């Protein structure tokens, strides 16, 4: 009996393992692309004929051959570049009495703030894991390496503390959604023992670091668990600063802001903070740059790309966005009539702020207060309840940033041409330290009767371009010639001209230390008085740094796209809520701040028509659609993809090549799994892609290059933008492109191009700015840098994905002027100017349509008007929300690939739709989609090594036969055990029968 039970037990155990193997293997096959990516497996290889002497290196690494020695050089350069970016991108916000840089006698310090023990290298999002490993320099190490003596008692206390910063995500341990914890220690943490540690020692300087953390899917809270904006100073932080102040022990107090979101900072004087440095999210090496700035080894030259409002809730965009999103007033009715999931269809954001995002709001309202127009001093939108005043609302304006030295900037000349405005500026270092200076060129365009009557809103100031000097020694000067694109002066008239117009009237060019300074210069040239700065101090402005000229009204010049000769006209009327419900939204207008300021969120019910629109089915087979039989497929002529290298998109050779594909082969291309698989019959290699603006998210091959470390986690993209240095922007693109060459990646989903619509955006750290022009200008060199390496820069998320909460399926409503000059302008630089060949879309809806289902966005605007030739990929469909699975509608809208479609649901659905309805039209769309996608593949470094004689050979990943073998062996074992059991059972029964 015992032996029988032993066999039974073994059979049971084997059955358990066999079930695990079968289910597990099935799961691995479903996620094959991800598994292969994680294991560094390529599923295809190129086999070349002997004697094939064709040069097949189409894109070369600047380091030479891809080998272990050159990889080390690349890695070293990425680390150095990270430090440089941090040095040039961190922004010195306050520096009383030259508190910084610290002298050599000020190196015995206490580092305050739990953030030192839990630094925010990078918020949660796709990208590099390099900050998690041994090649990351933590802040303590960075200070020690620079020769600082650090208060080890406090350091050890922080490190052993259980306090943790929480982002509000679900906490497994507590089984609750975690508190949005600032992660700061409370008063009781600072025992007398700890306080005594700085009594006589480590008290040269108190350096305090605060962090604010968002992330993908994690918006910062407009009202957190402590009942306040997550961007305001919290109780524990106040207590910490007060404790430092009250101790009277420290000669200086320095605050570091470790965050990608602009904190409220009106408390710096209250706690006697001598200097404040915003350091963003420094990545794995950036803290070295932070310390270099503190010691003066580097001079700060970064400038803000956001407005730091005194009250983070004060922008009009906050009224409807982020934590204030609304659900339909008739949500129950909506849910009863929809086929979509509840989370996909419930929320909307009526962007009543119009164009007035960030500085466009604060600076425009300021000008109108100064000029006494538009009832700008109304109490509506005022943070104090009194008449709106710039000094009450803004702490640091867009473009602000201090240095350890002083500069003067003189506007030497401005030449206005047909298409450009050329500005010449001389910068002189009048201080005592070497440093770099940023020239910011701003413009003002007229807001006259035409604009008021036709609802063409105008910001009082807008960024036109920027440039950075080289390192200037004291007394040294440099003259910069900056060319500004006149197109950026045009405004979009969405009511009358339905195109871009040049307004009639006075135009101004101005340079300034920031947007507010530049605006004051313009106001001074207009003879305005009572100008103030953000402190509330009266200033005179410098009319000498402005230039004025006149333009005539022109609705023709930009009425045709400059990228494609397509006529420009309204494409997004249906994205305006007023289109569906008359008068639903009053857009903010500077003609009447008081009457149009959004004091509360827009609340509406969705009509039946709107619900139908949200249900996601838009494609209808045309009456004259050809039969599937009429579409040429499957005519294989052994033409490989490599034969199309160098061919233009319109080349007829593409037709012949694409006709080789079978329907299922064409459909297989749409399902992305961090790349696409090989198709050996048509010589298409497997393609792998990376993801992340701060790092591509790969691991180098230890087997090939002797080093298996993660790719570099650079400082966050916001730091990069804050450098205002186009050389650094380009270099980032180049270096990340080089990493992709070593990782075999065809594309990286970067840069992030969405707008900092509010200060609470969870992914603001990986976008450039609150300003669309800044985003436009920054993206161009970065995308060009990466594309030059044969790696596609796939900017994301196109378009309008400006918040992280409710991002899946949120309906974003706007007027077309705001969209074109805002969210679309963000992407125009990368896709239309820099000619990036890939783009990833967003989760949000454009109006009521998911942006991946918007033909107006993808085909009419992106491909036709902007002349984009390349790949359009959705955002992740992996989680299968209902609104993402209308594959036919999205394919017809112009999508090429479905991001992270593990199981190939998109491919199957599309083939089924084509075959069941005999839709040759849809088959033709699929074929063209393949054309668009494969064009990007053939124009990438993935084709290095391939000639027309090359064969693409499938490589079976090693885990597939291994798992199959395991299943076979376990099955055999199970069968053997069952046979043994069966025979023993029969034997026992026979014994019993004989006994009887």
């Amino acid at each position: 009996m015992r032996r029988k039970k032993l066999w039974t037990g073994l059979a049971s155990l084997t059955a358990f393992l066999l079930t695990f193997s079968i289910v597990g293997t099935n799961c691995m096959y479903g996620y094959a692309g991800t598994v292969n990516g994680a294991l560094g497996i390529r599923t295809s290889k190129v086999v070349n004929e002997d004697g094939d002497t064709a040069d097949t290196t189409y894109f070369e690494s600047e380091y030479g051959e891809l080998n272990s020695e050159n990889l080390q050089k690349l890695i070293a350069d990425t680390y150095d570049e990270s430090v440089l970016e941090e040095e040039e991108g961190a922004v010195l916000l306050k520096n009383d009495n030259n508190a910084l840089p610290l002298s050599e006698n000020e190196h015995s310090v206490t580092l305050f703030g739990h953030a030192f023990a839990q630094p925010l290298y990078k918020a949660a999002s796709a990208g590099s894991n390099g900050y998690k490993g041994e090649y990351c320099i933590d802040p303590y190490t960075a200070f020690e390496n620079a020769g600082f003596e650090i208060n080890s008692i406090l350091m050890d206390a922080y490190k052993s503390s259980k306090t943790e910063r929480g982002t509000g995500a679900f906490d497994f341990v507590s089984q609750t959604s975690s508190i949005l914890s600032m992660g700061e220690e409370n008063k009781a943490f600072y025992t007398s023992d700890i306080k005594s540690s700085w009594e006589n020692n480590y008290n040269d300087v108190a350096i305090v670091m605060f962090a604010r953390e968002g992330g993908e899917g994690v918006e910062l809270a407009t009202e957190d668990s402590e009942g306040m904006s997550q961007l305001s100073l919290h109780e524990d932080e106040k207590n910490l600063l007060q404790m430092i102040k009250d101790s009277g022990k420290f000669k200086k107090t320095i605050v570091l802001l470790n965050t990608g979101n602009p904190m409220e900072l009106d408390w710096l004087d209250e706690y006697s903070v001598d200097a404040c440095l915003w350091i963003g999210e420094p990545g794995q090496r950036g803290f070295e740059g932070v310390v270099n700035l503190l010691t003066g080894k580097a001079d700060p030259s970064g400038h803000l790309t956001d407005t730091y409002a005194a009250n983070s809730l004060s922008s009009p965009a906050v009224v409807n966005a982020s934590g204030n999103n609304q659900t339909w007033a008739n949500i129950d009715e909506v849910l009863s009539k929809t086929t979509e999931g509840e989370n996909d269809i419930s929320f909307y954001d009526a962007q009543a702020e119009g164009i007035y995002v960030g500085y466009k709001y604060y600076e425009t309202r300021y000008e109108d207060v100064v000029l006494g127009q538009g009832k700008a001093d109304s109490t509506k939108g005022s943070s104090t309840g009194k008449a709106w005043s710039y000094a009450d609302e803004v702490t640091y304006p867009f473009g602000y940033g201090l240095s350890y030295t002083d500069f003067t900037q003189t506007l030497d000349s401005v030449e206005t041409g047909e298409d450009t405005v050329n500005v010449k500026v001389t910068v002189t270092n009048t201080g005592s330290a070497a440093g770099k200076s940023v020239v910011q060129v701003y413009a003002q365009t007229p807001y006259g009767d035409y604009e008021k009557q036709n609802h063409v809103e105008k910001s009082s100031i807008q960024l036109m371009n920027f440039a950075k000097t080289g390192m200037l020694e004291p007394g040294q000067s440099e003259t910069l010639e900056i060319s500004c694109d006149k197109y950026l002066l045009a405004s979009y008239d969405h009511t009358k001209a339905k195109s871009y117009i040049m307004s009639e009237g006075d135009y101004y060019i101005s340079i300034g230390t920031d947007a507010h300074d530049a605006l004051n210069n313009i106001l001074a040239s207009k003879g305005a008085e009572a100008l103030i700065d953000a402190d509330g101090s009266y200033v005179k402005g410098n009319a000498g740094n402005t230039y004025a000229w006149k333009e005539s009204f022109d609705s023709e010049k930009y009425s045709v796209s400059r990228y494609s000769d397509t006529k420009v006209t309204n494409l997004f009327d249906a994205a305006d809520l007023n289109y569906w419900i008359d008068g639903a939204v009053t857009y903010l207008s500077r003609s009447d701040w008081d009457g149009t300021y959004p004091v509360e969120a827009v609340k509406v019910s969705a009509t039946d028509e709107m619900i139908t629109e949200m249900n996601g089915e838009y494609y209808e087979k045309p009456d004259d659609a050809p039969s599937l039989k009429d579409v040429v497929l499957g005519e294989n002529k052994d033409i490989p993809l490599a034969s199309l290298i160098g061919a233009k998109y319109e080349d007829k050779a593409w037709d012949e090549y694409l006709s080789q594909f079978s329907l299922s082969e064409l459909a297989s291309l749409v399902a992305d799994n961090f790349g696409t698989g090989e198709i050996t019959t048509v010589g298409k290699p497997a393609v792998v892609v990376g993801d992340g603006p701060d790092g591509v998210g790969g691991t180098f091959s230890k087997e090939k290059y002797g080093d298996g470390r993660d790719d570099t986690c650079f400082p966050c993209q916001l730091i990069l933008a804050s450098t205002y240095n186009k050389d650094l922007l380009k270099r980032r693109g180049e270096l990340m492109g080089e990493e992709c060459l070593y990782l075999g990646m065809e594309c990286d989903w970067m840069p992030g191009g969405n707008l900092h619509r509010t200060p609470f955006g969870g992914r603001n750290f990986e976008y450039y700015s609150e300003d669309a022009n800044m985003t436009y200008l920054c993206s161009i060199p970065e995308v060009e840098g990466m594309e030059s390496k044969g790696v596609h820069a796939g900017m994301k998320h196109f378009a309008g994905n400006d918040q992280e909460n409710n991002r899946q399926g949120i309906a974003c409503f706007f007027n077309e002027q705001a969209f074109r000059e805002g969210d679309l302008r963000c992407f125009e630089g990368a896709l239309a100017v820099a000619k990036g060949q890939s783009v990833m879309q967003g989760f949000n809806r454009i109006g009521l349509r998911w942006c991946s289902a918007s033909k107006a966005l993808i085909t009419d605007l992106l491909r036709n008007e902007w002349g984009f030739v390349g790949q359009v990929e959705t955002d992740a469909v992996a989680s299968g929300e209902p609104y993402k699975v209308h594959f036919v509608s999205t394919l017809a809208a112009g999508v090429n690939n479905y991001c992270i479609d593990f199981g190939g649901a998109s491919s199957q659905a599309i083939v089924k739709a084509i075959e069941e309805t005999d839709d040759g039209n849809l088959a033709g769309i699929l074929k063209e989609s393949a054309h668009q996608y494969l064009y990007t593949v053939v124009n990438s470094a993935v084709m290095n090594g391939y000639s027309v004689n090359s064969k693409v050979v499938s490589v079976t990943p090693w885990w597939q036969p291994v798992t199959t073998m395991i299943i076979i062996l376990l099955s055999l074992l199970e069968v053997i055990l069952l046979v043994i059991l069966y025979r023993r059972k029969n034997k026992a029964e026979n014994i019993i029968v004989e006994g009887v």
Partner: protein
Amino acid sequence: MMNRIKIFSVGAYLTILAMLVGVIGLVRYISWSSSHGGVDPIVAVGFVIAMVFDVVLICRDDSIFCILATVGYSLALFSLLADSVGTFVDMFQGINMFGDVTQIGNIVFISVFAAVSAVLSIIVSFMPIRKAECECTK
């Protein structure tokens, strides 16, 4: 009935325990999954098959029923985990894209119950169900 209970060995009680644990797991799964992505029939059927075979095992001790019960619980466990891969990836990556990290707790709870049932089932496979059979071996 009492005679039957008297002859039950530890194996029988562990079988009953496995069933009870399985019932809790199944009920929790059904109530949770119906509003989170829907019920995966393989998971539900796995639980049910296992419990049915456990009942049959109590009534009629046969090795095959132990094995089939183990298969059932294992199927429920591993299918649930396979369905939840995206959520675990999100948890480890600290993002919220492929699954729903807020449901990690529920998924782990159900998985633990399925795992306990499966392990108990394996243990039971090594043991007799009835004391009378034990007597026979002496």
